[in-house]
């Protein structure tokens, strides 16, 4: 409309240098986004047949893939083009919406003010105030959640409906000026209504400023989309956008700077182009001062291009070699071990510690009653031995004499009873209490009706007797869990009143300082009952350190040990033979699977479940993260026990297609016709390895006619959805063995007793035979009989396919050469009780501080 009304505008814009630069920049981006894709491979297709780069990273640029491939082996140029289509489209449409709303509100409230309805004007401007003060992140998350899925349309509306506020203020003040002009008064005097005046006189006058601000708005929308993509609340993958690509390439900035530079260059080019267009429009519409007409060399473009060339051209810094250390074979006492994690630890109370890192720390502070040795056999700790009585309904535990707590109190049977009663107290929010529901008197005590827990008896000073309602062979394993680790008598019995300063146990280290947002410092417990242990003086663990920063700090010698390196860094270190003696991959007791809801279509049909089982091929994922390994059975290999490997999930596309045919949904891969007619939602958590894995499974399942849509939700929503009945069709399910026994996988993940209002059996799978096997295994103490029971259980799950095992995670640990005496097994990770550090030559503690690593709490003391 504007262009028709002012026919010379386009030509006037192009007459300026700004206009021509804008044309070149925006034109080439349009070409990239809309024309080039015709000649490129599909943007979301992984090609794992390309060999990885020499440094272990994703494939570098080649003639087939001009810009290389990303971490999932997808062509970067294709993704750049696909991302451009979305980013440009979203930004332009959202800016258009913002302009319409902004002009409408601005002109409307100005007209209202002049027409005597000041309240309407005031109201509109107050709404603007509120929107400007709203936390943007919360707002966008909310809208995304309400809509259920962030796609391009959602994003357009979110950005469009939040982006108009600034514009409306400018338009309003301009409109107020216009409305007080003489010709407007004349028009009104001639009988023109306020609507007529707004349409005929105000609107044309605010158009130039709207066009100019609108172009810059498109730029801000591109930026906003990038930031949302970075915060993982933007458009759902696998759809590429420039912002998402930047985010995904973040950990690859060292290895493949091009992956960061390419989308970054597109964003900067679009912003520069739009800025130039805005300038040109200001000149063309006469809203810019005359002097700006001077010729302008595109210096901004040159600066941006120079910065990009520098980034890409800068030779990548090689991994530093391991520092030389003096050889030493006998443990040396002293030294402070420095660690970091990207997570945060909320509590060090053993009764409530919920996750892997906090449990690992808790184990260093509180010794447990029993533990596991490296072979996965029960081993003594604070308890020396135990005996079964009464046909497995009574367990007598003999405690180690002469042990003292960190506060000096001596340890005995009464402390065991007190600590267990503390963890199971009616007011205890312990996540592990239900494990002990088999104790006699559990219900009465937990509900507050009984003053003490009848099932735990102090028999003698160092003898405790546990009485069970039903025989349970897993009780000794349950006593290895930290929830019931003995705590000092000085620790308050109420968990709510326990501050970190009051916590203490009988472990090798005691808590020195604890800050949930900063880190934790543990110091040596000199009174530990094992002589000479621990060797270390202190352990400092910093929280919330991003994996990338962990690598930087490790290379600077500021960390002694890292275990959360990014996938790219793991590849890089593994490709370097010099670091091989100082790193290792530790198996874990973790299983990742795809759960299929057996109560809902399509997966109430066992053949469709089998099709999924045959179609997925997790083996390619080791190219994405070297520390994952494919898993073919429910129970990972790291769990001790001998199992006959007769039944295993295998990848077989022909068998999958056969299963699809049997199910009544034949699929023809050649034509792409047939298969399950509807898209199926796959629920997982964003920004995790599980999300990347899901993007790969999505491609693999599409090949047999199962079209998957990723549904990425926050961890809370994920838990609520997968535990609710008839809600989530399929998705990721993970389980970490609480103690090394196959039973912890089948119960609760696959037994029917775990189905309820809130179900831990995410497949809602009920098999009477499996339930019976699990019940027998619970009371069975003979190892070989148990193995036979679990082999049969594996067969049942394999045949019915409610739970498709896909990967087991391994932990890649990297140590500084001076860290000695640390071995980790799947059962004892982060156990530094026997670790020691080779002193740095002549480096006094003061000199060590000068290396830059200061305690996070330097100010506190």
């Amino acid at each position: 409309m504007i262009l028709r009304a002012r026919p010379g505008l386009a030509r006037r814009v192009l007459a300026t240098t700004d206009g021509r630069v804008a044309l070149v920049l925006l034109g080439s981006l349009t070409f990239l986004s809309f024309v080039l894709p015709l000649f490129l491979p599909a943007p979301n297709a992984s090609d794992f047949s390309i060999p990885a780069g020499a440094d272990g990273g994703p494939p570098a640029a080649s003639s087939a893939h001009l810009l290389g491939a990303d971490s999932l082996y997808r062509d970067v140029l294709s993704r750049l083009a696909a991302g451009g289509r979305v980013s440009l489209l979203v930004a332009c449409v959202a800016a258009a919406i913002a302009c319409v709303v902004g002009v409408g509100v601005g002109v409307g409230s100005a007209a209202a003010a002049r027409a005597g309805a000041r309240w309407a004007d005031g109201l509109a401007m107050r709404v603007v105030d509120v929107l400007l003060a709203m936390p943007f992140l919360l707002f966008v998350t909310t809208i995304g959640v309400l809509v259920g899925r962030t796609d391009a349309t959602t994003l357009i509306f979110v950005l469009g409906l939040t982006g108009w506020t600034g514009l409306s203020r400018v338009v309003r003040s301009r409109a107020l000026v216009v409305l007080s002009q003489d010709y407007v008064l004349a028009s009104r005097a001639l009988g023109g209504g306020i609507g007529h005046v707004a349409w005929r006189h105000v609107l044309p006058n605010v158009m130039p400023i709207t066009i100019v601000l609108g172009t810059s708005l498109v730029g801000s929308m591109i930026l906003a989309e990038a930031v949302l993509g970075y915060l993982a609340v933007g458009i759902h993958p696998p759809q590429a956008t420039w912002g998402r690509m930047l985010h995904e390439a973040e950990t690859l900035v060292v290895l493949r700077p091009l992956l960061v530079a390419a989308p970054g260059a597109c964003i900067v080019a679009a912003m520069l182009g739009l800025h130039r267009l805005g300038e040109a429009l200001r000149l063309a519409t006469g809203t810019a001062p005359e002097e700006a007409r001077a010729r302008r060399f595109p210096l901004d473009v040159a600066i941006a291009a120079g910065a990009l060339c520098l980034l890409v051209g800068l030779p990548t810094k090689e991994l530093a070699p391991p520092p030389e250390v003096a050889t030493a074979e006998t443990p040396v006492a002293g030294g402070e071990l420095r660690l970091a994690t990207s997570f945060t630890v909320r509590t060090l109370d053993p009764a409530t510690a919920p996750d892997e890192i906090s449990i690992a720390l808790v184990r260093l502070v509180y010794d447990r009653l029993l533990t596991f040795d490296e072979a996965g056999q029960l081993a003594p700790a604070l308890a020396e031995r135990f005996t079964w009585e009464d046909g497995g309904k009574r367990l007598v535990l003999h405690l180690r004499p002469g042990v003292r707590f960190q506060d000096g109190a001596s340890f005995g049977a009464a402390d065991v009873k007190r600590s267990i009663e503390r963890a199971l107290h009616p007011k205890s929010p312990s996540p592990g209490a239900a494990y002990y529901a088999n104790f006699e008197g559990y219900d009465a005590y937990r509900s507050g009706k009984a003053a003490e827990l009848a099932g735990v008896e102090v028999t003698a000073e160092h003898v405790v007797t546990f009485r069970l309602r039903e025989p349970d062979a897993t009780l000794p394993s349950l006593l290895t869990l930290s929830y019931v680790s003995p705590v000092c008598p000085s620790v308050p019995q109420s968990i709510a009143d326990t501050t970190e300063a009051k916590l203490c146990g009988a472990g090798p280290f005691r808590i020195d300082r604890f800050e949930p947002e900063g880190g934790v410092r543990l110091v040596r417990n000199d009174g530990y009952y094992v002589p000479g242990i621990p060797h270390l003086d202190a352990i400092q663990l910093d929280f919330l350190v991003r994996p990338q920063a962990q690598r930087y700090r490790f290379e600077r010698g500021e960390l002694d040990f890292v275990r959360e390196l990014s996938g790219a860094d793991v590849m890089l270190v593994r490709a370097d033979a010099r670091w091989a003696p100082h790193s290792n991959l530790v198996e874990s007791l973790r299983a990742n699977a795809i759960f299929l809801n057996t109560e809902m279509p399509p997966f109430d049909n066992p053949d469709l479940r089998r099709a999924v089982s045959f179609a997925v091929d997790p083996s390619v994922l080791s190219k994405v993260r070297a520390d994952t390994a494919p898993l073919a059975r429910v129970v990972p290999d790291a769990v001790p026990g001998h199992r006959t490997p007769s039944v295993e999930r295998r990848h077989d596309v022909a068998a999958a297609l056969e299963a699809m045919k049997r199910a009544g949904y034949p699929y023809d891969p050649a034509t792409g016709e047939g298969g399950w007619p509807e898209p199926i939602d796959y629920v997982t958590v964003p920004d995790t390895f599980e999300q990347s894995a899901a993007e790969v499974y999505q491609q693999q399942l599409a090949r047999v006619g199962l079209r998957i849509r990723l549904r990425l939700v926050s961890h809370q929503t994920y838990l609520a959805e997968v535990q609710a009945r008839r809600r989530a069709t399929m998705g990721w399910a993970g389980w970490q063995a609480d103690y090394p026994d196959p039973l912890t996988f089948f119960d609760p993940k696959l037994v029917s007793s775990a189905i309820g209002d809130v179900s831990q059996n995410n497949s809602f799978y009920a098999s009477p035979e499996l339930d019976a096997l699990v019940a027998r295994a619970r009371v069975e103490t003979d190892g070989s009989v148990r193995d036979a029971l679990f082999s049969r259980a594996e067969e049942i799950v394999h045949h019915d396919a409610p739970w498709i095992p896909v990967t087991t995670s391994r932990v890649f640990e990297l140590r500084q050469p001076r860290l000695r005496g640390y071995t980790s097994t799947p059962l004892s990770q982060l156990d530094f009780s026997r670790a020691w550090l080779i002193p740095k030559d002549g480096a006094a503690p003061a000199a060590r501080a000068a290396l830059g690593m200061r305690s996070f709490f330097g100010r506190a003391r």
Partner: protein
Amino acid sequence: MRTAWLVLRRCLWGVLLVVGVTTVAWALSSFLPGDPVAAAMGPQAAPADVERARKLYGLDEAPHVRYGRFVSRLVHRGRGDAAGKGEHASCADASGGLHVDLGYSFTYRRPVAELVKKKLPASLELAVAASLIQVLLGLVLGGLAAARRGGGIDHGVVGASVALGAAPTFVVGLLLQYLFAHRLGAFPVDGGYAARGLEHLRAIALPALTLGFYGAALLVRLVRSELGDALAQPYVLAVRARGASRVRAGVVHALRNASAPIVQLTVLELGALAGGAVVTERLFRWPGLGEMAVVAVQNRDAQAIVGVTIVASSAIVLASVVADLLGLALDPRQRD
């Protein structure tokens, strides 16, 4: 007198605005789907234990009941009881025996008031440092560009500011961290908030630069156009004719007249930053409110969300009141 009335009205509206925004934030965070308690308890907790924790954290009550209690306890008399004990477990002491109670954050397992008290200084410090960089760059570069309008310096400055403004904060931050901390080793990688003296300055340098660059990109262009317009005014010519040097005419006379919008923009930016810089704080592990906002939103911790929102929106409102007042003080023309 009119000014006083104006200030009073702005402040009253500001309070209303904070209350409104806080209520909306509470409503949004309470009515979102998902189970925050289950997530806080860890994925492997049994349903019965999750239910019990929900009761213990007081999250089994209806959102409006919880909101009512929150409002009624927001500021109350301590009656001689110490904050942080029993009934007053989630309180912080304000002066005169008053308690401030922002509730208890179940993700941090701390009273929200205590968290805010700890994190606000970090965010404020970063905001001030970023503003200093922004003002310094803005005045020097913008001033140079204004003085040589249309010349090579002008084009260079404008070009650089556009390019810088076009780069998202996280890209600038990542690159600064990569170049100066990793490649050159000149600055700490992250954290270091609690370090003292020189080490603390080195720790704040990269996050402050990340934020400062972005703000400076805007300010440079504002200074350039405002100062440039002022320099073209006849009174500057008159001052020069009376023998004042170029610098004196520019700094004392032109800048004085162009200062109102520049100061106002700086104060507004400061207010927005004081509420926490989400991306930058996360990147450099700066323990401020931005980091807390992300954690709170991710965990649907309504109490913590409201705590951050109160502070962040108050800072924005306060900054806009101060900006208005400064505008009145610096530019008499705004007084009518």
